[in-house]
């Protein structure tokens, strides 16, 4: 009897976790399509909040800014992170181990603390607040994710492939472009998607580092909720969730891909 009971408890447990994780999201998504502004039932299908949102210039410009910052962050973090990973892979140097260990704490340190530290630091060195500060902050947050993902992929890369290419006359740039990058591409794409997600979903650091009036989407939502909740927020949140989930889905697909081959 206990044989059949244990897996059953396990399944119930898993179900409970998934329920508490996804039920609020599903309710919110459902409500974003409900006509009533006060969450009244019966459910009446409507795209009213999406239309209203589409007409809201503030939301749109925040969304554009969020996407823009996320794209710049992705490009910069992916390029720097990939270069760093290849450097760490190819060369042995004093302090390499320490450097690699230092990559992980930023993932674990609460963003509230990272954000405060960045704000103080950026003011101290004169960058202050604003979009450049936000981008620098996001890149710093996203870098470890890119490095970890690309490094994981590189660990299965055979360095003699680079040597073979060089023996056939390829210079460093050609070797990188034709041999190394094609191999680590899935890891680079996954790292880039993680970087995009880290930036696009970022609230704390953006909140600390952005100028009032130059908010990103999560910051705008937060300020809007404080003023008074409208189902428009459900609509924009639903879109953000859909985008984030799609990115995470792609990222895990690519990084699994990266581990498999």
């Amino acid at each position, binding site marked *: 009897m206990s044989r059949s009971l244990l897996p059953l408890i396990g399944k119930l447990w898993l179900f409970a976790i998934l329920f508490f994780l996804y039920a609020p999201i599903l309710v919110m998504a459902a409500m974003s399509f409900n006509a009533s502004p006060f969450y009244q039932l019966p459910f009446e299908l409507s795209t009213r909040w999406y239309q209203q949102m589409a007409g809201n210039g503030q939301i749109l410009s925040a969304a554009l800014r969020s996407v823009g910052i996320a794209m710049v962050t992705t490009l910069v973090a992916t390029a720097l992170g990939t270069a760093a990973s290849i450097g760490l892979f190819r060369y042995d140097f004093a302090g390499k181990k320490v450097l690699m260990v230092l990559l992980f704490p930023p993932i674990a340190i609460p963003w509230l603390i990272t954000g405060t530290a960045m704000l103080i630091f950026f003011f101290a060195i004169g960058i202050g607040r604003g979009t450049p500060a936000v981008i620098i902050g996001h890149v710093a947050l996203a870098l470890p994710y890119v490095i970890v993902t690309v490094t994981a992929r590189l660990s299965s890369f055979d360095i003699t492939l680079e*040597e073979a290419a*060089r*023996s*056939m*006359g390829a210079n460093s740039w050609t070797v990188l472009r034709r*041999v190394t990058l094609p*191999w680590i591409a899935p890891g680079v794409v996954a790292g880039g998607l993680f970087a995009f997600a880290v930036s696009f979903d970022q609230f704390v650091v953006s909140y600390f580092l952005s100028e009032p009036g130059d908010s990103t989407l999560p910051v705008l939502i937060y300020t809007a909720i404080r003023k008074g909740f409208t189902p428009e927020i459900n609509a924009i949140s639903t879109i953000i969730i859909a985008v984030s989930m799609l990115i995470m889905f792609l990222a895990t697909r690519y990084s699994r891909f990266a581990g498999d081959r």
Partner: protein
Amino acid sequence: MSAVDVQNVTKRFGQTVALDDVSISFEDGGFFALLGPSGSGKTTLLRTIAGFHFAETGAIRIGDRNVENVPVEKRDIGMMFQNYALFPNMSVADNVGFGLRVRKVAAAEERRRIAEALELVQLGAMAERRPSQLSGGQRQRVALARAIVTNPKVLLLDEPLSALDKTLRVDMQIELKRIQREIGITTIFVTHDQEEALTLSDRIGILKDGRIVQVGPPREVYDKPVDAFTAGFLGDANWVPESWLSALRLPQPANGHSFAVRPEALSMAQARLDGMNAVAGRLTQRVFAGAMATCLIEVEGQKWKLIARDRDIPEITGDGAVWLNWRPEDTMAVRA
């Protein structure tokens, strides 16, 4: 002029001296084997010629160029790696064509040369496959085609056959030799397998502890090893006890030399034969192995080994007392 010339090259890794004042010349169009036990510096020498290592001292010439300051990609070499190192994301044809594309060879010419190289290794039909769709032996051939397609000045091979099983290895040895003859490319072949070195090469260089011990044609290094290490490394050697030396005809004055005989040079009899060198011993074991047989004979407390066709070895009766005879010219003299 030799195709590749290494002069007084020394290479250290930290405390380890991997190459200790190595000088060696590789003849144009020759098949040269670098033979030595593991850790003797064979790979280091090959990779220093290729340019993956830079020597602390000495000079390396490939063709008519000194290459100490030339990076790998400009040395005009072909190299075959132990694990083949084929590009997994490219087809066989693209793998072979890599070096041509890097050199910006025209498309039509590139296609022709890829086809030619694949034909040479008998893989014409496999051009569109991925490396993952090939057997070990086929990958090997692709790696070879890829290494020679650019007509490099020298072909460098680091134990290319050691990953193959015995039968396939022998097939590939024959293939390799055929292809090397056909295109006449100067080849440097690293191996720790003495039989492979003796079979394939025109010249052998023996390495030990980062030093070149002896260089010469296979027969010469086998028949006339310069020291005890080479004598024992290339095959079995039976060492003549000093007490017997005065009774033998020796190729050298005994002073400062040790003397040995190969197992296959011996013949066993119950008497000492005229005009031959001989030592007396006691037969302890006879091992039948089909066509050939091995006998173990105790000579003055040392184990001697005899290898001969089974039918050429007489039956020994009684207490096993025998004479081991050999022609005086088969006595090997090495530095003591």
